[in-house]
């Protein structure tokens, strides 16, 4: 075992670091806010500029083939670039959905014309994408979606509603999964489309989240008309096309970070209690140890995944546990850190709340992480079925025409 780069990896890392040092500021407490906050006009402008710079330097689509504007690099190089970029205050959260999920789906399943139209502008940051899968009645059960696309001559006419759509309010394009045949079985009646988000017939409404911010949207379609050339993959093949997107989503979300051991460790060392610093309390120490081994267990699990990538292998099943463990741990840490603050734990004013209200904000954002990109329960099902090889659920709706499947009231 060793933790060193191969010579080729070291060379790439040096190139990436040189690019970042030339064009970006190192991350500090003061400029960290640029990452992860809900994008506003200013952040979108800076994100566009940064994306264009990355594209110019060949870091915007590292693993994509050169004919798609990529570098033809390895997944390991993607990991190395992400590790290096994490040290810098660069805008994030705007292009991940497009370049991580939507456009790879178009590349895999789309036509040469679609490639020519969409890939290059996305890589250069000129166009932003959103993903239009989830619906009010189709969350974990995405294939139960009801948005209809009806063929009318050479066009498709789309009516329905999507929800939980990150970035829909500033996106240029959306990857939309719609039902084209309600009389086919649930998974067989779906088709994928690329739709223009600023066309008449598309209405975006912001959703205010638990934390008070609004990055999600509802998107309504009223007689939206798109040509058949907007279809991605065959009619009725939408589920298979969509699985490409969802697998990418889980990899993308699984790598996210947030409030973790280091933050709560710093907090309990500084927090004064009747018996001295809170870290002297055995109950606190026990929890710290548990979070430490989960946090470092995940870190070293990522090392195992990176090792496989470095050897040119695909990530092993262990890489699927990241989001499940991270989300629950964040919620526990936040709740416990607030318990130690007593009545003041309710105060969210950043000027007075400990650590700039980090734990208060985490308490309110953590429930979303346990749901987005596959709920804890769906993640467990996926690990059970794909990793442990356990049987799938008994599906009472699988072979019935979608139109005959009972719908609930919520």
């Amino acid at each position: 075992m060793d933790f060193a780069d191969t010579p080729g990896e070291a060379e790439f890392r040096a190139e990436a670091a040189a690019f970042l040092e030339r064009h970006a500021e190192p991350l500090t407490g003061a400029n960290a806010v640029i990452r992860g906050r809900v994008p506003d006009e200013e952040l979108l402008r800076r994100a566009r500029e940064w994306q264009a710079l990355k594209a110019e330097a060949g870091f915007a689509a590292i693993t994509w083939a050169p004919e798609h504007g990529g570098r033809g690099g390895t997944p390991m190089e993607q990991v190395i670039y992400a590790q290096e970029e994490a040290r810098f205050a660069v805008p994030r959260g705007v292009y991940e959905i497009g370049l991580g999920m939507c456009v790879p789906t178009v590349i895999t399943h789309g036509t040469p014309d679609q490639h020519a139209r969409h890939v290059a502008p996305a890589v250069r940051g000129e166009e932003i994408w959103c993903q239009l899968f989830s619906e009010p009645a189709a969350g974990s059960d995405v294939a139960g979606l009801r948005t209809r696309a009806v063929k009318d001559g050479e066009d498709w006419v789309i009516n329905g509603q999507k929800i939980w759509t990150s970035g829909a309010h500033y996106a240029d394009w959306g990857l939309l999964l719609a039902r084209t045949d309600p009389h086919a079985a649930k998974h067989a009646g779906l088709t994928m489309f690329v739709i223009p988000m600023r066309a008449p017939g598309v209405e975006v409404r912001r959703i205010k989240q638990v934390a008070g911010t609004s990055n999600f949207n509802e998107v309504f379609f009223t007689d939206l008309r798109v040509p058949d050339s907007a279809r991605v993959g065959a009619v009725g093949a939408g589920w298979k096309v969509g699985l490409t997107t969802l697998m990418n989503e889980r990899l993308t979300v699984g790598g996210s970070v947030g409030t973790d051991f280091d933050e709560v460790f710093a907090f309990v060392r500084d927090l004064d209690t009747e018996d001295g610093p809170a870290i002297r309390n055995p109950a606190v120490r026990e929890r710290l140890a548990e979070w430490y081994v989960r946090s470092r267990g995940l870190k070293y699990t990522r090392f195992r995944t990176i090792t496989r990538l470095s050897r040119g292998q695909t990530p092993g099943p262990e890489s699927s546990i990241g989001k499940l463990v991270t989300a629950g741990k964040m919620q526990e840490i936040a709740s416990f850190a607030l318990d130690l603050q007593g009545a003041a734990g309710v105060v969210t004013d950043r000027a007075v709340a400990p650590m700039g209200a980090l734990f208060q904000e985490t308490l309110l954002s953590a429930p979303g992480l346990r749901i987005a990109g596959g709920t804890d329960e769906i993640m467990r099902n996926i690990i059970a079925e794909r990793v442990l090889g356990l049987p799938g659920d008994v599906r009472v709706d699988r072979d019935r025409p979608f139109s005959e499947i009972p719908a609930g009231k919520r």
Partner: protein
Amino acid sequence: MNFEFADELLAVRDGARSFLAKNAPTAAVRRVLDGEAPYDAATWRAIGELGWLGAAIPEELGGSGLGHEGLCVLAEEIGAAVAAIPFTSACMAAEAILLAGDAEQQRALLPGLATGETIFCLALAEGPGNPHPRAVKAEVRGGRLTGTKWPVADGGIADRAVVVAGDADGGIGLFLVELAGPGVTRTALESLDPTRNQARLDFAGAPALPLPAARGWAAVEAVLERSAVPIAFEQIGGARACLDMARDFAMERHAFGRPIASFQAIKHKLVDIYVANELARSNCYYAAWALGADAPDLSTAAAAARVSATEAFHLASKENIQVHGGMGFTWAADCHLYYRRAKLLSLMLGGAPWWKDRLVTRLELTNADQGA
């Protein structure tokens, strides 16, 4: 980044897995459980001949020179087989002798340890309580040991003991005692895990030779930390075996017209075990590297591996019984072998709360160093 064991160690692991499946089935463990033998002598002899016990011992001292990473991959397989052999004690004694023995003692003792011809035990505890220097009442005066140690894992079958005792200077040291010699009385103790021997050792002026190269409580802690790493691999091996058993049973057992593995209550339970096992495995990998490389953060890495492996084996062993239902609670099913072993391994180096506290203490020290 190469965070995986070397190919030759993976081959060693695979060889060990098939060897134990063939030669150390749970039927052999059950002969010890049922009191027909004090330990599985055939397996012990065989793995001694194969060089497993000497994996971390240098070749010039009779070891096989595989290194600590090699010892760890073998420990995982021994844990998975829930083998009824004094392996854990051999790991602890080897660390003690490598750390505190002088060159002559190492030459005299380690070859026998490596072949398994000499069975060693480590005598630390003196009744209930986690390891603590003030709990050490046994003492050596003029080369004679007086005091009582219990429980001593494998104390009833060992030839030699490494004993933690006070010395004439009022400090603490490690001493070597011949258990067949004068002044030693051994009493068997019944225990949670009858597949591993437990004894009370009474010393009344037994001849005791100091291991002089490392002294004080720090030496005892170093032995515990360094042993904790291969033992954590034994624990994740056991946890892996429990998950495999639970999965196989759930796939075959039908209820309500379906395999019970198709119910989310069972699926999610098995996933929680899988997640705990993977987290523990990753912590163990890092600790194996830290032990092999003598890394500065070995103490932290060993404690983290110990804490997560203990939690994983506990969870896997108890939920394995739960998945098996009533059958899992019978003497005939193998589930209880792992449930017993999980608790034994979690206790014999000090319980989980003690290791969690040590882990946080190490983190406080490391963080203070970084701040300074």
